[in-house]
């Protein structure tokens, strides 16, 4: 199970969604798909049609910059970051 850490801006949109949770998935996209199954609409908050990560959403797998197709293993740590923007 990969360990997934989400930005503070997401849990208020989806009742019951924690900041940190374990997900059984082979890629980043699969992990997001698993979350979307449980919290419908969550994929749209992280991804654009394509799909592609939204421009201000960055994902790191084991502290390396990752994309939707980046692979995960049972010990992966996935950080989803709301990148610096706004003011």
């Amino acid at each position, binding site marked *: 199970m990969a360990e997934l850490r989400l930005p503070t*801006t*997401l849990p208020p949109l989806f009742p019951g969604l924690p900041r940190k949770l374990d997900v059984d998935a082979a890629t980043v996209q699969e992990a997001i798909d698993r979350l979307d199954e449980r919290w419908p*609409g969550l994929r749209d908050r992280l991804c654009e049609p394509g799909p592609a990560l939204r421009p201000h959403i960055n994902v790191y797998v084991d502290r390396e910059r990752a994309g939707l197709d980046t692979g995960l293993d049972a010990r992966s740590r996935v950080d989803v970051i*709301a990148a610096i923007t706004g003011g």
Partner: protein
Amino acid sequence: MSQQVVLLVGTRKGCFVLESDGDRCDWQVRGPFCEGWPVYHAVHDPASGSLYAAAASEWHGAGVWRSSDLGETWELSSEGLSYSDDGLKLSKVSGLTAAHGRLLAGAEACGIFESRDGGVTWSLLSTLDGQPNRDLWNEPENQPPGHLGLPAIMPHPDDPARYWVIVQGHGIFETTDDFASWTPRNRGLRADWPIENPEVGYCVHKLVMSPDTERLYQQNHVGMHRSDDAGQSWTEISEGLPTEFGFAAAAHPHDRDTFYVIPLDPGHGRTMPEGRAAVWRTRDGGNTWQRLDRGLPQRDAHLGVLREGMAIDALDTPGLYFGTSTGQVFASADEGESWTEIASYLPAISSVEVAVLG
């Protein structure tokens, strides 16, 4: 039941709800709502009583928030708010309109979406295919830095198949067959820039309808205009105003000849001229104008008001409201004769709408 007047204020940091009784003297502020997302337009649907707020987060994309309890709780949806296969990218929604049993939203890039289930799901109605200049306004490499959107949708109050929309930088288009086909409605407008096709290429900022549905008004990038034939032709009515530029406008709900605008300096500042706040009113269809500034700041008041930043209620003596780019809300309970500042420190305001309940 006593009347309740509700202002919906969309800001860069969420939606706020301001409430008063029918006297419109004492106001209470609630918010911010919508998790502090930038809200471009918030409206009340009189048919359902629901509130809707069109928003776009830099992180999480565009969506429409909805509340069925006057803002106590909110839910977000963007299901179906997407251009699927023609390369268009949806970056923002605004221009919410609740009419004839549907909720409509204008989008950037230019398109119109509808919801038939109270904002839970959405579907694309039109991207104005086939209209002159359509290839320009929806082509990413032809977009100016600010991008072009479809920020306003005005329904006909009696004909559920008839709407007017604004395409930024190109003008007004009318449909009379429920979004199936369109006709440009820009005849008589002025453009201070070269245009190839005289049917389109005009910068319409705000379009409003008087109680006489043949009488429309608009605030344009270059001048205020009036139409007496439901937009088929336009006559400029700018003479007597301090500038021809502005964004916000409001039509009196009971008098076809009364119309309000907020002239702004047209340069980079786009604030009220000379730092003196004023709303301007015509009572004769734009032949003459009166400056309304009693109670408004007359010194160092460099206030901006955006397209959806002014609203008028439908009470017997209508109340007028506007919100500024520096977070103040001003209200008048006497058709603009006198004004009171009813909120002072909100985030930058994008929109103000008003509803009278009870």
